[in-house]
């Protein structure tokens, strides 16, 4: 009886011992909200306001411009090549790293992180040094009439390099946490290597994989630095959307610049919403690296 009474008393006095006072809470929440508004929401809103500033007609005209359309096409093409390749590589690499022990494993892990630690400009420069006219393979490529730098292949290569780690980074911790017991169980039940992969490993990582692909795609479409170095910025030919935005902006074509930028921003928002939905629905199945 006594214990019950004292328990009720604790509930009646509404002091929560693990929270701050009211003023402190309001202050902290306001500060973080203001910070977010200033640095995140305001810029995004500005993009759309500027883009639509001279009316919807001007907005669509800017997008229908042949140079803009070609930039959009190139961006989509680049992502369409880079994302699947990095997806396959990412799955393969994380499968190898998480499920097997081999020599040079730590080297592989470090290498996967390399694109994150190197400035994108340098990533682009590497390709110029390798495949450019004065580059390592330059004369050979020139002889065989293959253009890589200042052409679409260079842009695709640079994008692949920069977006290399996204899928693998997402999957490695997830697969390491899941361990190899389920695969062993599948093998002991008679499944072959492929069957084990398709029926057990892949379904277990599907949400993490989708998440990684989304992030990879967002970066592939938005990459500026590395692509800028290798593209040569030939309007209508080697301009991606971010590069096109920059050119328009430098030409004081503000409305057109923001119109194209709004497409990118819209894409980013879609990605974020999809990511949020994924996290909300499958958070417990996603890996640890949510950067």
């Amino acid at each position: 009886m006594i214990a019950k009474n004292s328990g009720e008393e604790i509930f009646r006095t509404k002091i929560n011992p693990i929270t701050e006072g009211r003023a402190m809470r309001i202050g902290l929440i306001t500060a973080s909200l203001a910070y977010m508004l200033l640095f995140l929401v305001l810029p995004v809103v500005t993009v759309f306001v500027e883009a639509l500033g001279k009316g919807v007609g001007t907005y669509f005209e800017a997008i229908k411009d042949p140079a803009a359309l070609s930039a959009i096409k190139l961006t989509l093409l680049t992502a369409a090549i880079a994302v699947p390749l990095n997806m396959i590589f990412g799955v393969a690499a994380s499968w190898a790293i998480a499920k097997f022990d081999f020599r040079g494993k730590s080297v592989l892990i470090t290498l996967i992180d390399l694109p994150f630690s190197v400035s994108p400009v340098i990533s682009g420069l590497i390709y110029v040094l390798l495949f450019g006219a004065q580059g390592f393979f330059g004369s050979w490529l020139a002889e065989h009439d293959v253009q890589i730098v200042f052409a679409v292949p260079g842009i695709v290569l640079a994008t692949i390099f920069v977006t290399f780690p996204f899928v693998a980074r997402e999957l490695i911790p997830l697969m390491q946490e899941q361990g190899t017991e389920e695969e062993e169980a599948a093998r002991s039940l008679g499944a072959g290597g492929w069957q084990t992969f398709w029926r057990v490993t892949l379904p277990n990582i599907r949400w993490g994989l989708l998440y990684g692909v989304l992030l990879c795609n967002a970066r592939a479409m938005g990459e500026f630095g590395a692509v800028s170095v290798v593209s040569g910025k030939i309007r209508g030919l080697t301009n991606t959307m971010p590069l096109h935005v920059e050119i328009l902006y430098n030409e004081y074509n503000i409305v057109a610049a923001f119109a194209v930028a709004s497409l990118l921003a819209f894409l980013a928002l879609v990605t974020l919403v999809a990511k949020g939905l994924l996290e909300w629905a499958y958070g417990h199945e996603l890996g640890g690296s949510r950067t």
Partner: protein
Amino acid sequence: MVIEVRNVTKKFDTFTALRGLNLQVQPGELVALLGPSGSGKTTLLRVIAGLEFANEGQVLFDGKDAGSRHVGERRVGFVFQHYALFRHMTVFENVAFGLRVVPRQRRMSDSDIKKRVLSLLSLVQLDRLSDRYPTQLSGGQRQRVALARALAIEPLVLLLDEPFGALDAKVRKELRRWLRRLHDDMGLTSIFVTHDQEEALELADRVVVMNQGAIEQVGTPEEVYDTPATPFVYEFLGNVNRVPCRINNGKVSLWGIDVAAETHDGTPIPEGDTAGFAYVRPHDIELTPVGQGEPAVVRHVAAAGPTARIEVSVQGVVPLIEAQLSRKRYLELGLKVGQQVGIAARAARVFPASASPSPMAGSVSG
């Protein structure tokens, strides 16, 4: 199916998990691999299953070398310690897995698979939970799904790694009995790994006691408990008092009895005076009124339950000695802490100190 392990050695980098093991399991037997962690019991089970491959030696199934056969081809049902259920599949699909991955020519029809899975699920009393996912099940239910899944491929051999390790005491007891019945009804040959001696002694036909990658003793539960072959088995199985003593020309006089020293590997006992250890089970110790037997002093009394556990100190012996008395005897003697009593042994076994493991050797993992 006869399972034979011949001279199996397994090394991981620098660590040797199994040192030239030999073991034979007869058809229909239920065998326990018992040992402390790091003793190699799980590795042995995995080598038999084909999940690991031995560096040296062979595993034979019915006299045929299984070494070249992968785990999937050995027809072994393996139940993993943490069940390893497929988390994205329902209970039904988990059990059906082994039937669905069979090559198309030999695969059962969908309706046959369904029938088979449902009959397995009713065997493990989970037919009502077939649509659940593993995370929605309790530990005991998961264990039974894992078992049903392993049984789906009609294994000749059932291998279980710490099958009851993660369950609470009550569920553990029930499942134990149930597993024993299942094993007998299905005519399986089963091997299970455990570090719980009670489990091994209660459930198994034969117990294999392992230590540091080697087999210390193989025998029925009675054999390993009543006549441990080595000091290690003595210390690992059941309670035992380990009393340092001096061996004189192969003999020891201890608490009223004369015991001949022995070695488990047949090496001769050194002549003259050597150090040794006497092993005395608590129930082989008799306490008497003061004046009879070796003098001792009562230090602790735990008298709840059908037997009383009394700890006494004996002069010249460092550890406290544990004695187990019937409740009746305990009341007769009217034992109290601090009381002077006499101690006598009914049975003991003596090994030279060189053959005895250091105390706690059992808990060293590697």
